[in-house]
């Protein structure tokens, strides 16, 4: 049983404002254990084979999205930690990954032989997902600033047999600057930005305790700078996914609004299609009005799909 932490009054107030009549439902789902989901590592095994193996162990498997058979929910009652201890996990046949966290890569649609930057890559769930889509071809630069997290990233890439990736350790903005100096450009960039993590309260309740508005403001500034830096090394015609696992508009729509104003006709927001219920981005928050295009962003709330919370947007560089 995870330790519970009381939410801070300001957090409750903000979520009530964001969700209105749906707040009650949101509050209820946060009390429930998150769904146990895995993503089959298709670099090592097919979804059919793994499903058969896991069913032979007595696990009940559900594949919730018909176009993505690699996504599985384990419906049986497992012991705590059993997913991570299983032989199939140790051999790299699957990655324990929350459903909503798989969505940015579904939007990114990596293709073989592309050059992709994962700017804030640890622990590697999305990097390994990108590599699987690329069938270990092309190139992924997976960057992470913290040494401790690099070790986790490297260990996950190894376990999943990801051979097309170079891990770099650099502050994100500085990395982009260096790459720009070398004229190193990418077909696609994933900016799964460092965020306040409001969407992860079900799996990481300690987020309640760490939450504060000052951090949101600080992260918002960093997220804008990271996006600006990343845009500079995106090829013309290339795509960038901006995602967070938070609901705070200051870290989501505010960034999108900033980017639209900052890059003008150089950038275009793209439609997103996902296998779950998404709500549009919000164009008004407190006293702020955002560009109407922010509505094309995708807000994922825990109560809508029984997942964690996420925010996803997709842009194309046109000039």
């Amino acid at each position, binding site marked *: 049983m995870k330790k519970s932490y009381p939410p801070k009054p300001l957090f409750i107030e903000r979520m009530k404002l964001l969700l209105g009549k749906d707040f009650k439902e949101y509050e209820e789902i946060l009390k429930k254990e998150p769904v146990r989901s895995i993503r089959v590592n298709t670099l090592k095994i097919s979804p059919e084979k793994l499903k058969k193996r896991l069913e032979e162990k007595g696990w009940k498997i559900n594949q919730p999205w018909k176009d993505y058979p690699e996504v599985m929910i384990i419906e049986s009652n497992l012991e705590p930690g059993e997913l991570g201890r299983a032989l199939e996990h140790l051999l*790299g046949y699957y990655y324990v990954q929350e459903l909503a966290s798989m969505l940015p890569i579904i939007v990114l649609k990596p293709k073989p032989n592309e050059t992709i930057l994962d700017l804030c890559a640890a622990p590697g769930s999305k990097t390994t997902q990108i590599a699987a889509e690329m069938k270990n*071809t092309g190139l992924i630069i997976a960057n992470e600033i913290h040494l401790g997290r690099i070790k986790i990233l490297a260990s996950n890439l190894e376990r999943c047999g990801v051979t097309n*990736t170079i891990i770099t350790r650099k502050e994100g903005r500085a990395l982009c600057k260096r790459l720009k100096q070398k004229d*190193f450009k990418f077909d696609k960039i994933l900016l799964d930005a460092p965020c306040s993590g409001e969407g992860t309260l079900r799996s990481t309740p300690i987020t309640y305790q760490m939450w504060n508005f000052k951090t949101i403001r600080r992260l918002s500034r960093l997220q804008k700078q990271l996006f600006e830096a990343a845009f500079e090394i995106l090829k013309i015609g290339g795509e960038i996914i901006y995602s967070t696992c938070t609901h705070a508009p200051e870290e989501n729509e505010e960034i999108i609004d900033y980017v639209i104003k900052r890059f003008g006709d150089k950038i275009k927001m793209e439609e997103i299609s996902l296998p779950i219920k998404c709500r549009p981005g919000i164009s008004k928050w407190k006293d702020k009005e955002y560009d109407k295009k922010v509505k094309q962003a995708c807000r994922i709330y825990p109560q809508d799909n029984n997942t964690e919370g996420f925010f996803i947007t997709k842009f194309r560089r046109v000039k």
Partner: protein
Amino acid sequence: MTLKILSINEKKKIEKSLKEQFGIDKIPGLLVKRGEERIFLFQGSLSPKEITELEKTILLERVGIYFAKIIRDEPKLSIEGTQILKDQIKKNIFELNKEQAEQWMTGQELNIKTGKRSFLIMKYKDDLLGCGKASEEKITNFIPKSRRLKIK
């Protein structure tokens, strides 16, 4: 830690050992040395020259994944090394039964006389489980702690 991309000749030397040991013909990708013994396999689209150029700009923590360790000129393949080369491995395979596979994955050595004194590929059904070192009385285990099965 500095990275060294192995030359064609250095790679050929490792391929020759792998051919003798396991019947492996070709390593698909670039080999990168990190430290004295650890060899990494990189299958990305950068050439050795491009990697060297990139390294001048940014600190590269890892290029590819841990593939093998060279011990007294003999390559010891990692779990991923054996999995990547699965279709090429023709000899010196030790087929484990269910009980032995479980023992192996918990990190224990196997008290088995194989009549060999070399590295063996450990296999259970379709699963390749890395390399073991056969000696007179046993097969020494190299499964890293983080990959070991914990039996309750």
